């Protein structure tokens, strides 16, 4: 017997009429789309910008993630970009005048085998070469950092005290409000049903929604797990696909856990939120195909086993709720960004492998600069869709959850 959830009709919130033309339409009102729209509006106040989202704000991955923000990565590009994003996160509350509860308690990556420890050490060296404060530490130092951690099977760990955790929702609202203050038209509960093209299918001409059509020469695809669907509207076959990742949180406890603890071998990660809940997840390859955001029993078992093994005292602590979201997975672990050679005016900002939330502050800024000046950061070529044709794949391995 399979339980099926009936889909309720979406409430239509027509607080304003949809414009019939715009200079750019950002499809996807998650943090990636909103950050891009915000920076676009600041750089070019005359530009008419519209952001569309098919449900309420925070409905997608931007509202479902664990809020981790880290600069510990294995590739130069990610290290460079995330170093800047961490800095932007630290400024966000006072710049946007909304608390995001960014706590820089650090990330502790643990290694339980020699080979993992060596891989970590190599990443740490690269990170330090870029000016990060990450360092390798031994089991006894890891124990001092997290006394409740069972370090008996620990070989080594890496620790960057500047990595941290935010509370995701106010981030989204902060960008949304700043967008509206800068004249961006934000329309939620507005679904894109078709994209129209001109010139024999060579360039974007309009966005068709359930509330009307907007003529525009530029569409930014910032829809994350939904991005292949959007690209299919213009017969572009993006190679990314959604992959469900589950997450759960416990009852609130008094603060005791300083860093986010992560284990790349199992994909386990957990941290203590500002409200005191332990929030975390773990990798699970056995997931349904497609966009599925339902919770499973198996996840509870996998996560609970790994968590209690890592931190035995948590056995008595109770799970309060579990939920899920979809990572936007690419074949090589790197995002898909920039223009598409085959179609003018169709700009990608997707494939962020479950780490788009933390990358959005810097990526939104860079994307806006690219769109306004025509000159972009090298990532817009390095991570371009064309690499799947030319074979110049770019691998990133430090993926969590």
């Amino acid at each position, binding site marked *: 017997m399979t339980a099926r959830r009936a889909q*309720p*009709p*979406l*409430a239509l*919130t027509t*607080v304003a009429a949809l414009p019939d033309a715009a200079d750019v339409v950002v499809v996807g009102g998650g943090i990636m789309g909103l950050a891009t729209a915000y920076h676009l509006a600041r750089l070019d106040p005359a530009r008419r910008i519209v952001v569309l989202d098919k*449900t*309420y*704000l*925070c*409905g997608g991955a931007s*509202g479902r993630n664990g809020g981790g923000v880290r600069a510990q990565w294995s590739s130069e590009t990610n290290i460079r970009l995330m170093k800047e994003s961490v800095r932007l996160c630290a400024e966000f509350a006072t710049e946007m005048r909304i608390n995001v509860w960014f706590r820089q308690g650090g990330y502790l990556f643990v290694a339980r085998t020699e080979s993992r420890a060596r891989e970590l050490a190599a990443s740490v060296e690269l990170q330090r070469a870029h000016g990060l404060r990450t360092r390798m530490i031994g089991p006894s130092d890891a124990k001092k950092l997290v006394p409740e951690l069972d370090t008996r099977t620990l070989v080594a760990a890496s620790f960057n005290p500047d990595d941290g955790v935010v509370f995701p*929702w106010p981030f989204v*609202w902060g960008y949304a409000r700043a967008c509206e203050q800068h004249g961006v038209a934000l329309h939620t*509960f507005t679904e894109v049903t078709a994209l129209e093209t001109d010139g024999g299918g060579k360039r974007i001409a309009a966005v068709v929604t359930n509330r009307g059509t907007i003529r525009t020469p530029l569409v930014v695809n910032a829809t994350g797990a939904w991005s292949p669907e959007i690209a299919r509207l213009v017969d572009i076959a993006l190679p990314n696909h959604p992959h469900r990742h589950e997450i759960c949180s*416990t*009852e*609130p406890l008094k603060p005791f856990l300083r860093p986010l603890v992560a284990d790349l071998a199992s994909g386990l990660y957990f941290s203590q939120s500002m409200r005191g809940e332990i929030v975390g997840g773990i990798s699970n390859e056995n997931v349904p195909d497609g966009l599925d955001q339902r*919770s499973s*029993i*198996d*996840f*509870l*078992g*996998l*996560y*609970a*086993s790994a*968590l*209690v093994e890592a931190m035995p005292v*948590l*056995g*008595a*602590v*109770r*799970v*309060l*709720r*579990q*939920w899920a979201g979809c990572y936007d997975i690419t074949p090589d672990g790197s995002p898909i960004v920039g223009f598409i050679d085959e179609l003018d005016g169709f700009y990608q900002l997707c494939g962020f492998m479950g780490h788009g939330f933390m990358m959005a502050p810097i990526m939104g800024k860079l994307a806006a600069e690219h769109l306004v000046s025509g000159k972009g950061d090298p990532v817009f070529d390095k991570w371009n869709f064309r690499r799947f044709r030319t074979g110049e794949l770019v691998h990133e391995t430090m993926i969590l959850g």
Partner: protein
Amino acid sequence: MSDKVILCRCEDVSAHDVEEAVARGYRDLESVKRFTGFGTGWCQGKQCVALCARLIVAAGGEIPTAPITPRPPFHPVPLAHLAGLHRRQKDEP
């Protein structure tokens, strides 16, 4: 001096908070839940979701067509009792 009208006891969300959320444009149930925090605490909305829905409608927000998505578990369950749930007997279909 008046006292607060608390709707969500677990998270201390007041009637004023809910009205304020609607006034700011967070007009549907799920958005108000996120903006105010109602329904995200210990009881996960058991005590307050109906009351908040009524108040949102009274404040001019959207009439809900569904409740806030009910997340398992219905009651908090210790991690020690969940460990092992993914391991299944071989003869289990």
